[in-house]
């Protein structure tokens, strides 16, 4: 089952009188968007729509999710047929939910290097959910608003011929028997309000672990509902553009045989963690894997899930490499991970999230900046008198992403 992802390049994003793509400029009609969202999503009290472009002196606060606009052209199931994606553009949903999570995006300056979103044109939705709704409902309002907006934009991809078509059909490549068989194990948080993810519309607490095709991820099979610590939250955009999937596909047939993907979760109860890790390792084994790349989301207790997985895989003779960020303290002298196992001898570090950054004042801020001191990685004095912001990398969206999008790493000095 081949999957084709058609990339429709967008050079410029602006608000205007119609929603259309004309010669690489995507124009969005804000009122039509608002009407669409209030029709699709219950519980929006108010909504503001902004555009943020790369290089602008703009800071976006309390980001819930980032989504690439997509449109399924043909094919009934996720990961099959053809989907058009608007490239270089994304929808950003932000707003107050509970108040501890969400993160910052800086479109220029030192903070811009720490997020992939500073390189995209962003349609920013400031969503204000009806206050009488409980926290679970408010989260859903903001999440659904972002997804609905991305779908609304995605529709402009309907009549357009993509600039480039990415064909994802690993089964069509004949792999010599001497190529090592590799499986990608992607761990999704499944721990409750603001710590959930959605797989094919279903909460990741259920139905996992399961095997999927690589195209499942690239075709939007996973939607993010998680907001713990912006640095290593996997946004929907990260899942849609999964860097490990792309890296494995690039070497498929030449250096390795990319056998498939196992999606697993990170429950809150120990017995469930053990069960998931055990079942995931069994699935990897069933796929005949010689080796596995492991990615995760979050830190702390998910480190325990990671160690359980590594132990299970190595114990079954499957070599494992895992990506992880570190929480080594502001001075880097502290223990980086919450759990350990001797078999975890091949780790890729994507950086120490406790390192501090000072971000300069900007000309425009979007989202509730006054909530910044309460974000994970921020502190009471984070908002500086000169208008700048001092926070840990932890607060910058995607800065230590554990699917491995960034180049940041850690060395011992």
């Amino acid at each position, binding site marked *: 089952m081949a999957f084709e992802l058609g990339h429709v390049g967008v050079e410029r994003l602006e608000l205007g009188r119609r929603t259309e793509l004309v010669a690489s400029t995507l124009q969005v009609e804000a009122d039509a968007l608002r009407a669409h969202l209030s029709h699709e999503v219950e519980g929006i009290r108010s909504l503001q729509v902004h555009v943020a472009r790369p290089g602008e002196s703009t800071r976006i606060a309390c980001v819930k999710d980032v989504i690439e606009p997509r449109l399924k052209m043909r094919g009934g199931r996720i990961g099959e047929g053809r989907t058009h994606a608007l490239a270089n553009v994304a929808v950003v949903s932000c707003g107050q939910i509970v108040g501890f999570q969400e993160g910052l995006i800086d479109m220029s300056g030192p903070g811009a290097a720490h997020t992939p979103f500073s390189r995209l044109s962003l349609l920013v939705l400031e969503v204000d959910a009806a206050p009488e709704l409980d926290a679970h409902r408010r989260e859903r309002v903001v999440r659904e608003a972002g997804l609905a907006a991305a779908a609304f934009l995605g529709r402009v991809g309907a009549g357009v011929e993509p600039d480039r078509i990415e064909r994802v059909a690993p089964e069509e490549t004949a792999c010599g028997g001497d190529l090592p068989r590799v499986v990608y194990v992607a761990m999704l948080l499944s*721990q*409750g309000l603001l710590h959930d993810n959605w797989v094919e519309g279903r909460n990741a607490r259920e139905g996992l672990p399961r095997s999927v095709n690589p195209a499942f991820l690239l075709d939007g099979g996973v939607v993010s509902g998680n907001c713990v610590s912006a640095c290593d939250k996997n946004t929907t955009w990260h899942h849609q553009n999964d860097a490990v999937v792309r890296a494995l596909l690039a070497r498929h047939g030449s250096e390795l045989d990319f056998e498939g993907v196992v999606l697993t979760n990170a429950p809150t*109860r*120990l017995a469930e963690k053990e069960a998931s890790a055990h079942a995931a390792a069994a699935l990897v084994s069933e796929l005949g894997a010689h080796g596995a790349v492991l990615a995760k989301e979050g830190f702390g*207790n998910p480190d*325990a899930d990671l160690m359980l997985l590594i132990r299970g895989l190595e114990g079954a003779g499957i070599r494992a490499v895992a990506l992880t960020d570190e929480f080594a303290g502001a001075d880097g002298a502290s223990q980086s991970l*919450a*759990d350990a196992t001797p078999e975890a001898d091949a780790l890729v570090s994507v950086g120490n999230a406790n390192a501090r950054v000072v971000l300069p004042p900007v000309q425009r801020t979007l989202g509730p900046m006054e909530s910044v001191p309460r974000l994970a990685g921020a502190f009471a004095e984070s908002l500086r008198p000169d208008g700048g912001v001092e926070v840990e990398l932890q607060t910058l969206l995607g800065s230590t992403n554990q699917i491995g999008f960034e180049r940041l790493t850690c060395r011992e000095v």
Partner: protein
Amino acid sequence: MSKEIERAGLPVAHVCSIVPISKTVGANRIVPSVAIPHPLGDPGKPPAEERALRRRLLETALRALATAVEKQTIFE
């Protein structure tokens, strides 16, 4: 924190859900609890049952505090 308090001579019963982490970090008396967001509770149970569950966990913690141990021990 558990180890530093114990270093000062006070026995500590660590009530937590993710026992492997507690074991790795080195707490000596470990009491496995219900789940991360509600270690001493279970919102899926009726209130009286939840209180009884909490009391049982605390009784186990007391037992841990009153038991001599030579190495890391899990009390259930």
